[in-house]
């Protein structure tokens, strides 16, 4: 038993207890706060499983935005759940029991938790992690691998996984056998001199021969923005859709001189000073997270949520009128669409430059040497702009409702 499994076990027990409490608590505010707690616990679970990007998102979304949305709704609806007679809903219990039993039945043939033999670790994914997909198969006009390139060496960077051959008939994982624990693998450098091109004229660092010229150490971002960048474009569209659906369903024509609901807290000295101090740093941090996504955890979505939180904080303390002076509603609407357009526009630009949709290597014509990087940065900014503005818009719509 290693530390990951131990912490995981304890955290998941806490998570489960919280989940039961969320469902059973009658006060809706308490339920919402518990949801926030639940999300933060989940973020810890993700961190424990080394999924930093997901943890970041969960903390920002579950702990932050969802809670704001839910509280905003509660203000306009009800505080308490109406008491119901029967404590246990037998029909629901039966449905869940059957569904759960079916799902558990399916788990018996799964690879053990953390099994390096699992097919997902050594089929298709190693190339994506090594970022050498562009050379895979070497067919159909894909890039030719540079001289001295050794695919096996790249594959082998993923430690013990690489010792397991990619053999579709390999069924070792099915015996849920625990492999010999051969201790923590000491990080060791794999030779890079063999295939790293020398300094180019532009004075760039020597790049290893991979899909992104070594610019993207965070493989989550490389998958998110490049290999599966098309999914992410639609992810941004989903957010955009949610934003305009909300406007369509909630926005009322603004009347002149309508009293602003919810007094701003601008007369609270402590809050005012602290907010004034921290909002610029929050926005800066948001931008940092968006830009830094290629190098470490973070990216457009997380950064966008952070920026939205900065603006929301500002609106809470200084009032929405003050926010609208900085960002008038029409500007927010325009920016909402602009993010999606930036993303899809990047894709279309690749198309116009003669490649496939979202083929960032085409951007090398605009910015030799780091076109992929440029494309991914643009795309991340697109996500960031849309996400932050949609979140802000949703907050504004909920806040503009007349409380009941």
């Amino acid at each position, binding site marked *: 038993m290693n530390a990951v499994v131990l912490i995981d076990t304890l955290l998941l027990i806490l998570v489960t207890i919280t989940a039961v409490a969320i469902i059973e608590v009658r006060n809706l505010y308490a339920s919402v706060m518990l949801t926030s707690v639940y999300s933060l616990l989940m973020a810890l679970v993700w961190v424990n499983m080394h999924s930093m990007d997901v943890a970041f998102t969960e903390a920002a979304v579950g702990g932050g935005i969802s809670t704001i949305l839910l509280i905003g709704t509660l203000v306009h609806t009800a505080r308490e759940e109406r008491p119901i007679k029967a404590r246990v809903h037998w029909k629901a219990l039966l449905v869940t029991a059957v569904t759960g039993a*079916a*799902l558990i*039945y*399916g788990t*018996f*043939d*799964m*690879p053990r938790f953390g099994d390096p033999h*699992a*097919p*997902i*670790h*050594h*089929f*298709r*994914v190693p*190339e*994506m992690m090594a970022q050498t*997909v*562009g050379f*895979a*198969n070497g*067919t*159909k006009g894909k890039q030719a691998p540079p001289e001295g390139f050794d695919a096996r060496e790249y594959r082998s960077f993923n430690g013990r996984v690489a010792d397991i051959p990619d053999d*579709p*008939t390999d*069924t070792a994982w*099915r015996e849920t056998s625990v492999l010999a624990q051969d201790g923590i693998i000491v990080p060791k450098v794999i030779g890079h001199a063999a295939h790293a091109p020398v300094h180019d004229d532009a004075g760039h660092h020597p790049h290893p021969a991979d899909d992104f010229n070594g610019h993207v150490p965070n493989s989550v971002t490389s998958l998110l923005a*490049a*290999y599966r*960048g*098309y*999914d992410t*474009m*639609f*992810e941004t*569209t*989903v957010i955009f*859709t*949610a934003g*305009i*659906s909300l*406007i*369509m*369903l909630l926005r009322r*024509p603004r009347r002149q001189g309508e009293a602003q609901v919810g007094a701003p807290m601008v007369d609270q000295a402590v809050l005012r000073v602290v907010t004034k101090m921290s909002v610029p740093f929050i926005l800066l941090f948001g931008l940092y997270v968006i830009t830094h996504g290629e190098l470490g955890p973070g990216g457009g979505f997380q950064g966008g949520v952070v920026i939205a939180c900065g603006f929301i904080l500002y609106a809470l303390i200084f009032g929405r009128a003050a926010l609208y002076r900085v960002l008038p509603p029409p500007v927010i*609407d325009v920016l909402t*669409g602009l993010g*999606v*357009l930036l993303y*899809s*526009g990047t894709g279309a630009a*690749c*198309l*116009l430059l003669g*490649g*496939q*949709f*979202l*083929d960032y290597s085409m951007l090398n014509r605009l910015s030799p040497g780091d076109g992929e990087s440029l494309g991914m940065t643009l795309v991340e900014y697109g996500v960031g702009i849309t996400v932050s503005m949609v979140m802000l818009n949703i907050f504004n719509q909920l806040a503009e409702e007349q409380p009941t």
Partner: protein
Amino acid sequence: MIDVQAHLPVLIVTIPLIGGVLTIATGRGWKPWAWATFLTGTVFYLTLRLMAQVLASKTGVVSYELGNWPRQWGIEYRVDALNAFILLIVGGVGFITTVYAKLSVEKEIPADRHHFFYAVWVLALCGLLGITVTGDAFNVYVLLEISSLTVYALIAMGKDRHRGALTASLRYLILGSVGASFILLGIGYLMMITGTLNMQDMHERLMSVPGIQQSRTVLVAFAFLLVGLSMKMALFPLHMWLPRAYTYAPSAVSALLAATATKVGVYMAFRFLFTIFGVGFSFGMMPSGLVLLGCASAGIIITGITAIRQTNLKRMLAYSSVGQLGYIVLGFALANVHGVAGSVAHIFNHAVMKGGMFMALGAIVYRLDRCDIRSVRGLGKQMPLTMAAFTVGGLGLIGFPLTAGFISKWYLVQGCLERPHMWPLAGVVLLGSLLAVVYIWRVVEAAYFQQPDPGTPRVEEAPLLMLIPMWALIGASVFFGINATFTGDIAMRAARSLIGGGP
């Protein structure tokens, strides 16, 4: 400039995406509608070209690798005869419905949010087209969520006419999300076992790895995908969301949904059952054939009876849609060439017929503000073209010869008779038609043989902008009923490739 021919699959999805986002900047009045019409018209044109490209290609498959990553790692767009056909349906009906939508939307949606409405409308089409064109399992999920979210919002826009639209939408949202989550879960189980997300890749792994088909994980993945897809396409016991949603949605939205949304759900079922799992696994190893046949037959009969009892015609057509979906499922659950061909053909036929009929109801709502059986009394004389369209569409639902419905039912009956011991299903198909005769006749009787309530004001025929799209669809159903070569050929071609195990 770019070579449109080489990029057709991606343009079909990205043009409505970019255009849909731009719709919010089109301002007020007729402009959002005109822009949406332009976009959907372009998409329709592109789907036609794509169809031609697929038919002309030697392999019958057009593949497009997004971002130029090899398909096993990146996301692939893969179009064969089946896809291209469904794309054509969604593109064509989407275009015609958009043309139709103008007057109906002007009447039913507040004027200050038309640009949002059309943006969501175009994005809904984008999502539906995206599901249909993709060859990547997870991409299906993301686009499914786009189309679902947009559809929830569109249904809820019926709120100003009837508050039931809100509960209908929320109910659909919860059931739809649970269904989509089941699909996500099924995809996850499959990914865990196969290690890939590409549909072709998954299929190859499922075929080549020894013992994988007996793996409990794969069995559970199959079951959950089936349940999730059934929720999404409103197969009989899981159809609870559909009647309300269709009844209370704005008229144009009902027409769009009836013609496209559930069809795309069925298409997903085709892809998962036939392309990923393969016909041998789905219908040989698993008892899904029997389960689906049972659900479909029960659905055809029970919803037929329920439809007869309805007074609200939109609700009646909604129940009828669930029943017609039963035919489609019945066809592919037979898992033989004629059955599947009947199913594919019926997707098209039902789309045009139901789309046209919902448009006719929309025209009645436009004039009368209601569409129940009492209000259509005597309407045969006052709105002759509209009622004629409804009647011809109804004949198609019945499966009357010389309408498109006849062709697909012919295939279905043939498919039933080809399977040993499955002949009672042919009886179910015929019984379903009989029930359709009853509920269509009620409307026809009221419209042509009864007098309107005394004192009700006379109404005019529906405006031309509604009649033309309506008759375009109804005319198509008659045209393809008389000349069934095109639909029949494509359906047979799609069926052969599906039964043959993947495109």
